[in-house]
């Protein structure tokens, strides 16, 4: 039966060449950088595409039109939707910019289609706005607009509740509110215990994340909390996430990396000062890393970083959750077998760092111009690398060292 269908139409003008916009709809890494959580594509007419999101939703389809720089179309069969639909995208160059026209066709009528229609009416304008942001500036609004509460959190349990006189035992106890954030402006303070946010339960990390779902920076939400025995409600504005500055050129990025690596080498050398080879080999527990394996982990991470950047340079798809895996211990064992002493491992780490710096310095201008990729590398270097040792492994390193120095039983 030929059912009646409707078409939604969206347009947006983007300062980027049509070829780049086309790529953003067809290349798995580019798609993931503005539209979905990860994607697989066989980018040709008749080839498949599969997009998925971290909330479990997915859509699969086949490219039915494929004219690079001009137009493309694909079928869209999304999870839980009443039937397959079609997406048509046409691109027109206009004064150095690209006019993107997206049609979402084949939406049925009647009540069973209402939710689907509403979801796409809402989603496409936001996605196209993000496409523009990602192509023009590299900034992924889905990340940049994640609301920030501006709080630091402390332990909370029945004992602490009793001490504070709070009549509930489940909640989020504040350690601190940060300067310039909505939490500070709303008057929240240390030892307040959050229980509700935006009308939803928020008593631990998972429920807090659920309570924040769909919220954006700038939204005002009611917050319910206990201050001692008193239950209070305030309206709080969700803060913006500070958008980090990334170095503008490959040379500046390499220089920033060089400094960060030098600091890290100094830090790790200092932390390991006076550690004997025997201490460095003692495992705190059978399945945990010893100090040598921990240093090997940093070496493996640099090598993986290099291969990750190389994949992007190759215009190859970049894996999703696998971007940076925890290294398996036997791989680290392989590295330690080759660089058996702490000084040898630290030397190799320095060589690995040097190589990363040289790779960054050599990033070609066309890569830097592809902002979503460059931004990802630059964020990794400027945001993730500096905290890797102190935040992720600092405590582990201390504990491992303490355990190694215990007189053995």
């Amino acid at each position, binding site marked *: 039966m030929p059912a009646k269908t409707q078409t939604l139409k969206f347009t947006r003008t983007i300062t980027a060449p049509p070829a780049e916009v086309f790529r953003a709809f067809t290349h*798995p890494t580019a798609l993931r950088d503005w539209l979905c959580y*990860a994607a*697989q594509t*066989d980018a040709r007419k*008749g*080839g*498949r595409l*599969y997009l*998925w999101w971290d909330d*479990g939703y*997915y859509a*699969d389809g*086949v490219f039915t039109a494929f004219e690079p720089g001009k137009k493309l179309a694909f079928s869209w*069969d999304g*999870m839980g939707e009443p039937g397959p639909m079609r997406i048509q995208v046409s691109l027109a160059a206009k004064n150095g910019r690209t006019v993107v026209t997206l049609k979402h066709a084949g939406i049925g009528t009647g009540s069973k289609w209402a939710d689907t229609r509403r979801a796409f009416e809402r989603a496409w304008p936001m996605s196209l706005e993000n496409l523009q942001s990602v192509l023009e500036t590299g900034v992924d609004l889905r990340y940049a607009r994640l609301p920030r509460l501006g709080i630091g959190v402390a332990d909370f349990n029945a004992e602490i509740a009793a001490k504070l006189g709070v009549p509930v035992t489940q909640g989020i106890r504040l350690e601190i509110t940060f300067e310039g954030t909505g939490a500070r402006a709303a008057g929240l303070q240390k030892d307040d215990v959050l229980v509700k946010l935006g009308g939803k339960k928020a008593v631990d990390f998972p429920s807090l994340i659920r309570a924040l779902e769909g919220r954006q920076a700038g939204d005002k939400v009611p917050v319910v909390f206990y201050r001692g025995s008193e239950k209070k409600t305030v309206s709080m504005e969700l803060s913006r996430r500070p958008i980090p500055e990334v170095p503008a050129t490959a040379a500046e990025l390499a220089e920033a990396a060089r400094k960060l690596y030098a600091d890290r080498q100094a830090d790790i050398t200092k932390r390991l000062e006076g550690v004997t080879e025997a201490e460095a080999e003692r495992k705190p527990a059978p399945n945990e890393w010893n100090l040598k394996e921990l240093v090997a982990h940093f070496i*493996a991470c640099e*090598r*993986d970083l*290099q*291969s990750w*950047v*190389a*994949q992007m*340079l*190759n*215009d*190859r*798809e970049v*894996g999703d*959750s*696998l971007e940076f*895996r925890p*290294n*398996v211990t*036997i*791989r680290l*064992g*392989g*590295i330690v*077998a*080759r*660089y058996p002493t702490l000084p040898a491992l630290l030397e190799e780490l320095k*060589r690995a760092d*040097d*190589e*990363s710096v*040289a*790779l960054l*310095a*050599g*990033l*070609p201008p066309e890569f830097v111009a592809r902002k979503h990729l460059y931004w990802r590398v630059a964020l990794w270097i400027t945001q993730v690398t500096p905290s890797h040792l102190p935040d992720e492994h600092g405590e582990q390193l201390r504990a491992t060292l303490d355990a190694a120095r215990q007189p053995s039983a």
Partner: protein
Amino acid sequence: MAAKTQTFKFKRTINAPPAEVYRAFTNSTALREWFCNAAMTDPHKGGRFYVWWNSGFYAAGEFTALEPSKKVAFTWQGRGEPGPTRVQVSLAAKNDGTVVTLAHGGVGTGKPWAKTIKEIEEGWAGSVENLQAVLETGMDLRFTRRPMLGISGGDELTPEIGARLGVPVVEGVRLDGVLDDMGAQAAGLQKDDVFIGLAGKKITGWTSLINVMQAHRAGDTIPVVFYRGKEKLKTAMTLSARPLPEVPPTPQELAEAVRRNYAELDAELAKCFAGVSEAEAGHHPAPGEWNTKENLAHLIVDERDRHAWIDELINGEERWYDGFAGSIQVRHKAMVSAYPSAPALLEELKRHEAETVALLAALPPEFVARKGSYWRLGHNLLQISRHTREHIGQIRATIEAARQP
């Protein structure tokens, strides 16, 4: 309208524990070892399931039941199929093995479903046979039964290669050479011939060539259409059997076999570089072509990527690559800047090889028990020599060129 549906059942007893069979239906790396060419799964109830094949076929769905070692069920919407269906797999321990019962239900009747029904019947029968082979022996029948042309590498045609060879086409596969005593040689094929058709299928690149190979077995005779320069020729060739390396059963033996290969290759490399000056080592045979140091850097990169790949295999989280994308000049340059001389690069290569050997020797028993992954790993590592020797050949030629007055 409540349409009539039918269910197709397949049953097989496999000599592997239920937990491993369960994993073979839920883990993306395990799925690609016997079933598809790649998979993305989120194995929890309601999680997504996506499998695809190089042929372009795919199926998408969601897990609807997951009981470790007992039961897996997922919805199935295959590309071009008239409607969604469901697959249910039940596992029962029996002696030391597992009885696998697979039911593909919700399949419609009549003409629109005829093609799908045929694919379900043939596809699952072949797949569960392969599931058994992979879990019991590690060998993927899709690979081991795949015949060989008997060619020693080649390139997908590009306009540049086409122009150089004078062939009037832009798509095809150029042969680098033929292997002794195999089908291509017997059929009179030679270096620089360009395949454009095999077994009646158009050859546009490696994917189409592999698809033809997957559809045939050793001993089949197929028509071949190729260009030799501007001349279009036709012949028939008999496909050869694939010589399969013995993968040693223990990681220690595998490590030792790989170590011996590396030692031979390292000796050949040392000989190549004996008496070579830094200027010679840095000589580019042509603009844009690698010098010998970049060749070494490429071998090191390869070794590193192998470590990461083994890491992924052990974790059961192998990445999917849409084909080989080649090595990156800037990465080689970075490596050469960290290890500036040929001796330094050779040393670094040896250290990486030693890391690989140490990694292999330490493979945990639970990984070795995953025969599909272990066999694939062993097979891959025992093939390294071929690739390294191609580069040793390039290195030799480059040094000779550098020494020409």
